[in-house]
């Protein structure tokens, strides 16, 4: 009395399932995914900190010392990263079994609430990404700065893309492993 997994899985969230990229890794998939997520997180943080440190040590060119540095990394540049970080926290605080909608839990509204918070988390992350792109365009590109100052905006976009990738990799790694255990437990 078991349905074949390839046809239809009632626990599935998405209509099209995520492609199994690294099935051959087997039981190490969760470990590897968590490591990759942590690496992406650190990469995001250091990309932005690189821009911030570079901005703090920016000096006028040597041949014309009176020319001031036109732009610095301020608090506005930190806001998209903080948004993405909050979104990542919200996403990872959700119990993943609730979102999947198993009927074993007594409260049926818990699934609805979990999905609402998942939506809030992804909205925060998307807001951070969109905010970083807006920051790049409004603060750096439209003002016509030189290429070395445009790097601050590019680093901000790269930070938010990496944070989103980190959250997605972490989610896939943790939820795929639980399905693996679940299928073995039956």
């Amino acid at each position: 009395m078991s349905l074949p997994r390839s046809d239809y899985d009632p626990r599935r969230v998405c209509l099209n399932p995520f492609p199994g990229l690294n099935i051959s890794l087997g039981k190490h998939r969760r470990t590897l995914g968590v490591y990759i997520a942590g690496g992406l997180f650190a990469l995001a943080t250091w990309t932005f900190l690189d821009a911030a440190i570079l901005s703090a040590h920016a000096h006028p060119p040597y041949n014309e010392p009176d020319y001031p540095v036109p732009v610095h990394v301020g608090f506005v540049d930190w806001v998209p990263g903080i948004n993405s970080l909050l979104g990542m926290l919200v996403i990872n605080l959700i119990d993943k079994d609730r979102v999947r909608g198993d009927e074993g839990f007594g409260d049926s509204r818990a699934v609805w609430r979990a999905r609402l918070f998942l939506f809030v988390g992804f909205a925060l992350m998307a807001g951070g990404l969109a905010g970083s792109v807006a920051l790049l365009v409004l603060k750096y590109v439209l003002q016509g700065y030189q290429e070395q100052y445009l790097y601050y905006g590019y680093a901000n976009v790269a930070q938010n893309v990496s944070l989103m990738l980190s959250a997605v990799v972490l989610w896939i790694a943790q939820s795929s492993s639980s399905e693996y255990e679940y299928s073995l437990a039956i």
Partner: protein
Amino acid sequence: MAAGLKTVILLSFVLAVGFLMIILSCALWSNWLPLLVALTFVVAPLPNALFSHCGADDFSTDLGEGSGPVDLGRFITAIIVVTGFSLPLVLAHSEIIRPGACVMSIVGGGLVYGTILSYTAAFKQDDSEYD
């Protein structure tokens, strides 16, 4: 167990070379900021060691390698390792340290962390024999 002695000597030699590279990268330019790389890589295996005992108790199956604290430890480990490699790059990018010091500290840090990893991998089976 005969291979244990050679492994220990080789690994300690590599560890000494790694610390030599890091300390040289500081001392040659008399800028001691790359010493943070050594500190980072020494701290790197600590989260896994702390959180690995939180995961499985005696009643759980061996398949269950996934629990929250273990994942948190791995996450923090990956963060620390990437930090160790990217800290010299960031410092060299903003011209606080020289590019030579950056390369030397990255190589030294990689040697130190590789020593720690291979030490854990080489002597892992000795621990499991006591179980």
